[in-house]
């Protein structure tokens, strides 16, 4: 019995001084090293576990960096601000496990330069230590505000940020090498936003960031950027053209709003070019060239009034990528100082469908879309409206293009200009001020097509499509009957129109619409319980 008791005591001695689940309450609220009764923040962090504060509405001055054990939870209870007052970080360093930070504000931590310069032959991408968190494992931030810090987060593992705010930080944004999940968070007036390699940004806001609001860098897994808004940033979203070595990664960008960004909404980044510009050794460039391309899938995104040097909404080089599809894009009022008012693409294939490109503007060619870089650059556009774009060049300027059920109308320049074999099917080219077509032969036109105003689309029927204010062919318009039903049913039109109204009949309409969108308008008009006779519910 006695030996058993000794054994038990020995085992207890082997246990860590403080179990990970222990709760430590910080009661000394002036600074992290404040002496007094009870643990200060420094002591609490050193012990790990869950750290809470008994500091009503306090600002705790942090005077030194801290290292925490795995699975430390720092919970400010929505009442505590930790202020570094310019202290070089990292505020918290963790070498393994997870770090949880909750309901707290952290401010004024500055970064420190790389611990050593890159070795000759290695590429430095300017990585900084995280001034707030430098975590070798995973980190999770929930209801956290980080402001006025330099390069606040660097996480080697996975990073979760939810219901948090990053404000007025400089340097690099939150950066994790694992999977990053960002939910319901706001990034406001930072120099840079977060960088993702895999993971998801959902329901978040990126506002007035002065650099790149969000980056996707050589994704190693699927990336989703969903239901977020990007407003008044410099560049809203930078997408890496390449995936990581694991294989082609898909970047899905869905239902976001890109508004009033000043250096474009979406731009691609080519690490090969970047390395070349930095004068990196050929062997390294050759290695980078072997990276597989990333694939971009954009759907139901709104691009409104963005500005940029070229392609104010989308400026991408797809030569090394796996291609880009845009479904349901709304491109309105984007202005490029150069070419491609809304979209500028170099190389690769860009597929755009069910999209509206209206009132975009460029100084160079392609007031709506510019797609160049030889025959390898291919634009496929279907079920879309290209209208009222402003610029001296054609609204669509492409080396090669395939258009099906597109309405190109009332643009200031030409409607469509191509330089390589292209195809146009079931489309309307109407009333484009400088002409409807350029560079197209009669063989390029398939199915039914209609031109009006200029008659420079060879072999295309001439007639007024009677487009109304929504660019729907009015009743009686020849455009309602001239479509080739087989083209309407097959790819890329796939039996739908711009609003996904079906094209199922033995005949179909030319252009973007199959018919007037009365059901949608009726819903908009009513926005109340359905009218009509009572149901047969006696």
């Amino acid at each position: 019995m006695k030996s058993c008791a000794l054994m038990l005591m020995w085992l207890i001695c082997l246990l860590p001084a403080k179990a990970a689940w222990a709760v430590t309450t910080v009661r000394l609220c002036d600074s992290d090293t404040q002496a007094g009764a009870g643990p200060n923040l420094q002591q609490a962090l050193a012990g790990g576990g869950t750290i809470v504060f008994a500091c009503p509405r306090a600002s705790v001055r942090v005077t030194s960096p801290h290292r925490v054990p795995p699975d430390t939870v720092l919970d400010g209870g929505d009442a505590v601000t930790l202020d570094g007052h310019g202290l070089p970080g990292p505020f918290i360093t963790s070498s393994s496990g997870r770090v949880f930070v909750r309901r707290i504000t952290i401010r004024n931590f500055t970064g420190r330069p790389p611990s050593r310069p890159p070795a000759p032959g290695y590429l430095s991408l300017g990585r900084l230590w995280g001034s707030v968190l430098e975590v070798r494992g995973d980190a999770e931030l929930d209801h956290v505000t980080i402001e006025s810090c330099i390069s606040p987060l660097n996480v080697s593992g996975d990073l979760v940020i939810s219901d948090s705010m990053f404000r007025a930080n400089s340097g690099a944004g939150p950066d994790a090498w694992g999977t990053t999940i960002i939910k319901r968070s706001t990034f406001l007036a930072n120099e840079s936003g977060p960088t993702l390699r895999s993971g998801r940004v959902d329901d978040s806001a990126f506002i007035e960031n002065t650099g790149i609001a969000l980056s996707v860098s050589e994704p190693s897994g699927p990336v989703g950027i969903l239901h977020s808004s990007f407003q008044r940033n410099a560049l809203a979203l930078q997408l890496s053209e390449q995936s990581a070595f694991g294989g082609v990664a898909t970047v899905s960008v869905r239902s976001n709003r890109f508004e009033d960004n000043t250096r474009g909404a979406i731009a691609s980044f080519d690490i090969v070019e970047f390395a070349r510009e930095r004068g990196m050794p050929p062997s390294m460039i050759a290695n980078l060239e072997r990276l597989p391309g990333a694939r971009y899938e954009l759907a139901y995104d709104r691009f409104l009034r963005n500005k940029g040097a070229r392609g104010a909404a989308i400026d991408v080089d797809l030569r090394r990528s796996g291609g880009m599809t845009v479904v349901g894009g709304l491109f309105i009022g984007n202005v490029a100082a150069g070419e491609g008012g809304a979209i500028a693409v170099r190389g690769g294939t860009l597929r755009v469908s069910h999209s509206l490109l209206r009132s975009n503007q460029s100084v160079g060619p392609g007031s709506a879309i510019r797609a160049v870089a030889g025959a390898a650059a291919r634009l496929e556009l279907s079920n879309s409206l290209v209208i009222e774009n402003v610029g001296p060049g054609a609204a669509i300027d492409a080396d090669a293009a395939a258009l099906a059920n597109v309405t190109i109308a009332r643009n200031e320049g030409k409607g469509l200009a191509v330089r390589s074999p292209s195809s146009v099917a079931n489309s309307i080219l109407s009333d484009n001020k400088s002409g409807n077509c350029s560079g197209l032969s009669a063989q390029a036109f398939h199915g039914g097509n209609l031109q009006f105003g200029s008659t420079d689309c060879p072999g295309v029927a001439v007639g007024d499509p009677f487009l109304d204010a929504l660019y729907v062919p009015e009743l009686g318009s020849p455009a309602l009957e001239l479509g080739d039903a087989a083209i309407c049913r097959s790819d890329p039109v796939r039996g739908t129109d711009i609003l996904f109204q079906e094209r199922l009949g033995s005949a179909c309409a030319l252009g973007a619409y199959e018919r007037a969108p009365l059901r949608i308008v009726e819903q908009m008009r009513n926005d109340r319980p359905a009218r009509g006779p009572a149901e047969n519910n006696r």
Partner: protein
Amino acid sequence: MTKKRITSFRVSLNRTSVAPRDVRDNGSCHSTQQTNVVTNPHKRLHCRLWSLFVCAAIWLAVGQAVADDRPALFPKAPRNALNASATFKDRADAIVTVNACGRELEYLNIRAAMAGGDLALQGERLTSILIAKTEWLRSGRRFSDPCESTVQFPKAEEASWSQTASPTHCAVEKGRVVEGDNVTVSVSVDSVCMRRQVNDAIRAMMKDSRLGSSKVPCIETFRGSSNGEWDTNDRELVRILYMARNVVLSNRQPLLEPETIDAMYTNLLAARGPLGPASYNVVAGCGDAGDELGTPEDTADRHDWGNELLSGISDVFKWLFEFLVKSAARSLQVAGATVIWPFMVASGNDPTALFVDAPEIPETENHRLQIESSRYLTNVDLIERLDKEGYAHADEIRDENKEVREWLLRRLQNITAHDFIEYNAKPYTRYSLESIANLYDFGDDQLKTAAHIVLDLSSAKFAVGSNRGRRVVPYRRLVEHEGITPDKDETHLYNYQSGADHEVARAIVLNGQTQLLEVTREVVVNGQKQQVQRGELRRQEIGVLVNTAVSSYRLPQAVVDMAVDRVQPLSQRVGHDGVEQFEQSPAFTISAGGMHTPAAYSTLGFSNSNDEGLAMPTVIIPTIAGLDVGNLFGFYGESDGRDRRTNLCLWKGFACGVRPKLPDLFAGCQTVTSTSTGTTVFFNSKKCLPAVPGPHFYLAARLIDCNGFPCPNGMQWGLMEIVEAPDAKEQDDPAFDLFRTQRGLALAASQVDITGSGVYVAANGDRIGYRFEPLTRAAKVITVNDISVEFTGGGGNFSAGGDPLRSSPISSDGKGRATIVSPTGARVDIDFSSWPNPKRSP
């Protein structure tokens, strides 16, 4: 097994119809004891030929002997209610097997046609096969064994079968027998092949029409009518989706490949999102029931997107105003659109008021049930998929689906309280019931209970109004499927495909009352002749039975008792928008003709006459025989179709009406007595069908010429009484003699006065007062023993119950509360008076 060359039966649904015989025209030919002697030689020849025809008719109708080497499709009919419930699985398995691997040539032909761009057969013909294959795979019990069956086809189609390049032609032929022009191939389909067949076929399907009714006019394009009906395919695909959900086969592969599910969402499952419209505005509706395709994420992300796109172009409401003004102007120029013009004018200065004022075309009940049941289930699956992948934007769909669910519950409550708008519709009952079966199988607890209640009531009504799975009932929609025109397949009482009463098909599976279809056949198996008892169900149409076979719905015992055991007389009246009235007894069921009802739907007072509710012939359905409506005793009324008038002249075994018809099937055993005041005919079924053990009956009929009243000159009216005859004898039957004497007197004594009223004293002593209404031409029983029993209907409520003198198995208060009680005491209690909270016990 004893070989019966003569008494073995061939009864198939692929048969020749037997025309109902108008007794007035031909009655004098058949009696061996007739008092009128046929002296005209031409007429004698005519009578001989007629006799031959009658014999042939009986041979076909009762089911007679031929050799047939096709293997049995269906188990023998159960002999009692307990056995009927216990053998459900046998029937279901037989149906699943034949459809899963016995229709391989059909599968290949459909797939080949689809590959060639012909999508006409990608509907229920294909999906019934796919559902059976899915059931085979998911059942697991046979997964390690291949599905084996036979495929039969004419020799001319041999090339189609041998065309190995056909899509997914992976069934293995195990043997082939060629006999004459027919080929029978034994096939084996293993699970790998079957999974491929299901997945490949779904991925080959393409949506080629819209949800909802076809031919809905609109002025949007002036292009004419829309091509609808996709909701039927959608409903079937939803069943497949749910049957295969989370099913992983023993080789660890999911039954449906992810690519197949993607294809279903992207290309096929169009019913989703918000509740669809109850009706279509002729200006803006255009039959648009809210079709939507795309991934679950697309559905989540398209909310408000369309609005934003349009708003990004122009002022939408200004556009709408201009659009309608121009449409008004244009409508003057376009033929066929002028119907809209009055509404344009009426809308005055605000053309957008057209949305309010323009006529609405109601969507039909069956379409709405198909659309909304599929929409609900697709939304549920879609939300689950979004949740599973952490796609946190399904809230709007969730909200929308609450509305869809509420509509479904309210609709099912409404059916419980009032019956279907399209009561007993042919063929739309199939669409409605299969939609409800989907909710029963895959809905949440409340929807499952609600669906259970409606299926129970529908089944119970069928059980009490049918006899061995056959019924002839009043129905609404479509008039063209009345099913009494002799040259149409639809006269067959087991018709379960074209223009069919779908409860007939369901009953075949659920209680298996196919005795009258059973035959004994000589079958050659491996060169050996064998006798096989079997039920013949037409293979080409057996797909209609699949959904009932794979559903988890089973009849409550109270219903099975009434449908199978038939131990006691029952009486049932059902009121809804129309009326139904039945008398059931072991040897017969009598179904009153009911009443005509207006079309189910109308626009501006205009309706389609094909949508009206028909009064049908009042028929007496003998338990022991009769495969065609022409085999039944009946009163056909003054006119056919929508002009047939009310007939509720029914009390126990007594019925009266205009244009009586006696079936040729029993002509060989009838005794005819003609006098100047009319003709009296007696039947002893034992004499007609001595080999059939029973239950037998005696029937007496009095046929009287009309002199302008109660029916037009040249017609007849009549009275019939049928009674049980458990001790009937083929010869020397004193009970029958007594019956003849007494009923002859009673029938002769019954005369109608100038008001159209008459009294008949029935065999049991009841004094039945009946009347032919002078104005409405309705035939009714008014009193029994001087107590009023007149049935005036339910006034739109499902007021199931008995007459004032008797209780009935189904009772309903027309507000959602009902009970089903069988003579054995088995019961179901229903309380669906509160739509969110349907209750059913046990």
